[in-house]
């Protein structure tokens, strides 16, 4: 059967049959408590369990037909044990009765191989509370029942509509590399033997489309745009998503390279967001301790233009990166990493905070299958005053960067060198599309060279920025 499926009908309805079962946060918390008990009985001095259960659904369509329909119902448990100040870790997807005891013994056996370190300890309720004694939980709006209940056929319809709208946007868009809609519905629990017992649930919905525009010589230009939200009602209309993606593809038609030059560069919000997500490792308390951060020794110094305030906010309401508690059960919080140009703080998990003689900043990131490590939540540069158009107007001759390759950041040195696409700017306007160039600088220079921050901050994902203008970067293209 190869006919396009245009009316998903009963298929959609029955796919949802599995929705009813699923683990509640309370059940996961009980399971975590049981695992902790097993670990103590197996000889652990302290123990901590992280349990997750997720139900995810995704549909991909292409050429007006469903290409893939996928549903994963998964669950797993990670158990950390402390034996003689060393940590052992075991994780499994087999949560049937009788396996927890075996798991606990394995974890204890592993811990005995490791180097004891008094900073290894699981968090206590007193340490784990929010900054300023904030009472928890406030409503962070992480769970939307409408996402859980959204029928599969509705998601399929949306994906088909996304693709249709992208194709209808411009005659030069003759196909797509797919349109996708996915939902995620999960519960998490963190329990430890010091009295921490957290459990919560959350949802997410994502939609994106990848239109391809015909360019000269049979080549294609790609546009890609998508948005992830916790709440269904926060997701933009399919029309808006499709139009943005299609506009990106069409705008690149006829792109060419330019001669190498040092010029001002305008970073599209997506590009700026990617930069700060790469930069984040330099703000890790672990990197600071090991001197592997290019920000080593710069605390309290002016490292950026005063226009720049970089925030990691674990409590952004309905944020995709928001969690009430981090991966160790510590209350998340809003941390200002750069405050008006000044390096204000590094971020910590419990272990590295203890080594540094301070408290965790609520930045331990993990899933059940990994041990906590320092990461970010919702990371963004605070919005400025100027519109993106006003920023463009300030550039006589320069580059507007709105797409990039995947690799090009050195987290030890802060060096930045990416394959880029975008537009050449002449007299404050986009003159023609550009490809086949790389844009390079160093993050410390870039931070200091931020001369404008846009007012167009928008959270499409967990990392966000406004448009930024960097006064000078190296754009390398063809020989001059």
């Amino acid at each position, binding site marked *: 059967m190869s006919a396009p499926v245009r009316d998903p009908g009963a298929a959609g309805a029955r796919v949802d049959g599995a929705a009813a079962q699923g683990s509640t946060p309370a059940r996961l918390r009980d399971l975590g408590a049981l695992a902790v008990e097993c670990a103590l009985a197996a000889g652990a001095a302290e123990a901590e369990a992280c349990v997750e259960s997720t139900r995810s659904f995704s549909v991909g369509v292409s050429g007006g037909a469903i290409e893939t329909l996928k*549903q994963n119902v998964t669950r797993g448990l990670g158990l950390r044990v402390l034996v003689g100040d060393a940590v052992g870790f075991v994780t*499994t997807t087999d*949560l049937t009765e009788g396996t927890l005891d075996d798991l606990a013994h394995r974890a204890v056996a592993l811990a005995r191989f490791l180097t004891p370190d008094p900073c290894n300890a699981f968090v206590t309720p007193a340490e784990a509370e929010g900054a300023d004694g904030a009472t928890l939980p406030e409503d962070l709006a992480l769970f939307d029942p409408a996402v859980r209940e959204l029928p599969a056929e509705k998601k399929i319809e949306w994906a088909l509509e996304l693709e249709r709208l992208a194709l209808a946007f411009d005659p030069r868009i003759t196909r797509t590399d797919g349109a996708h809609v996915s939902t995620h519905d999960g519960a998490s629990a963190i329990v430890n033997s010091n009295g921490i017992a957290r459990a919560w649930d959350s949802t997410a919905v994502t939609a994106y489309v990848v239109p391809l525009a015909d360019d000269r010589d049979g080549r294609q230009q790609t546009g890609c745009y998508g948005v992830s939200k916790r709440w269904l009602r926060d997701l933009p209309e399919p029309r808006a998503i499709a139009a943005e993606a299609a506009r990106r593809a069409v705008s690149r038609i006829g792109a060419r390279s330019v001669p190498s030059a040092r010029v001002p560069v305008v970073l599209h919000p997506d590009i700026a967001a990617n930069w700060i997500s790469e930069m984040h490792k330099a703000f890790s308390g672990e990197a600071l301790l090991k001197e592997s951060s290019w920000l080593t020794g710069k605390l309290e110094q002016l490292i950026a233009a005063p226009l720049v305030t970089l925030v990691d906010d674990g409590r952004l309401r309905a944020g995709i990166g928001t969690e009430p508690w981090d991966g160790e059960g510590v209350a998340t919080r809003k941390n200002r990493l750069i405050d008006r140009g000044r390096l204000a703080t590094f971020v910590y998990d419990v272990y590295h905070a203890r080594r540094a003689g301070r408290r965790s900043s609520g930045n331990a990131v993990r899933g059940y299958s990994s041990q906590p490590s320092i990461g970010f939540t919702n990371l963004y540069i605070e919005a400025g005053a100027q519109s993106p158009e006003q920023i463009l107007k300030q550039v006589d001759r320069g580059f507007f960067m709105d797409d990039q390759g995947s*690799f090009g950041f*050195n987290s030890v*040195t802060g060096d930045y060198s990416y394959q880029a696409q975008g537009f050449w700017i002449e007299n404050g306007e986009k003159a023609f599309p550009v490809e086949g160039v790389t844009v390079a600088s160093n993050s410390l220079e870039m931070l200091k060279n931020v001369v404008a921050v846009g007012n167009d901050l928008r959270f499409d994902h967990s990392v966000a920025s406004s448009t930024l203008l960097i006064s000078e970067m190296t754009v390398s293209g063809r*020989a001059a």
Partner: protein
Amino acid sequence: MSRNASRPDVDFADRFPRELAGELLAIAREGGADFSEVYAEYTVQTAFALDEGRLKRSSVAVLEGVGVRANAGAQTGYACADGFLPADLREAARVAGHIARDGGAGRVAPFHVTDSPAPFTLSFPAPLALDEAAKIAMLRRADEAARSADRRVREVEITHADSTRRFVVANSDGRWAEDRQYLSRFSVAALALEGDNRQQGFAAAGGCVEAGYFESERTPETVAREAAQSAITLLAAREPEAGSTPVVVAPGWGGVMVHECFGHSMEGDGIRKRTSIRADQRGRQVAAKGVTIVDSGVVPFSRGSFRVDDEGTPAQRTVLVEDGILIGYMWDLLNARIMRERPTGNGRRSSYRDYPLCRMTNTYIESGPHTPEDLVADVKRGLFCKHLGGGSVNPADGNFSFVVTEAWQIEDGRLTHPVRNATLTGNGNDAMLKIDAVANDLKIDGTTGSCGKNGQWKPCGVGQPTVRFSEITVGGTAT
């Protein structure tokens, strides 16, 4: 402790009997799907990590479950369940089968066991033969070696990770195939400091190897010294000159360029959907004369090798380009069936939680006639790329980019000084045509690569001899 905490080689056959597999395949075809498949997996992963001279992390992970796929034409329905509870698996099979619903129930053919020969066998697979104490001893030896290599080495991070993966794949055409795959990976990252200048060097070893490999082929000391040396070299490196220039790429890992610039565009899904620029290029010249490109799942001891792929198709050697002419693509079952091609053993998935995709195994350029020295000697001014970092390509427009972690400036046929932070960019359409010389020193690096596609990561090998490109755009800050 008498208990072996890793205990990787558990048999799960009794938890996934053939009758259950047959029942699931039938459920998945109830709605009229023309193909169904079940994939049951039991994987144990262990990891040990040492940094700051301390053994900080150890872990054992058990991943077990079953995925069910149904195909109706080009459409895929997929669902998975953790564990082997029959009720969960039947539910997964029903969900997967909903991709089709207007046909009659399909038959499931009797099973025939795939018994293709293994491309190589291991007497003492490292994940089984090395116990915790042995792995920890390796970490300590590497730490010592990296720190004593140079006093500027400040921090060393060492990881040993391995996995034992056992799976059964069965389908409605009557295929029943099993495989057991062992992977080990040992890696060292060394941080060198000199004043404000900090640089990191990286090296790795491993693959689908015998325990003895870490004593005879690549010892912890060798890997550690390579990482330390690279970090020290980079302390003295200069910024690259931006612009177009001849580029010579070192053998082995440098093959990541052919993987990105060419290999991805040769995968059967992009050919069938015509999203790849290579869809109409069979028989055409796509690389310079003298260039032969191969994808082979049977390279001994590489992490991209296996007996059967994740659809149960035996691994094979597939010539993609012969003397510059495109002669064949890579195929998984789905795309081969639709395109009436023969599957080439390229159906791979990251675990039972994902459906298989068409993707590479070990992809490499065959040796050519020149000596590696010739390739550099002929260059007046250019870049020699010794270590490449990550690379990526956009399959639709072909634009690629690579980070070169350690390069050397070529001046008048000689390597003069190290260069850091160079980025190579270009378009895959013509990159392989720009190869103007291939040396005779083929090396396949099956130790460390992982390829990402549609969110799934999979171990891959890459390789090439020393290769010269007549011109590639190098990005950098010096102009």
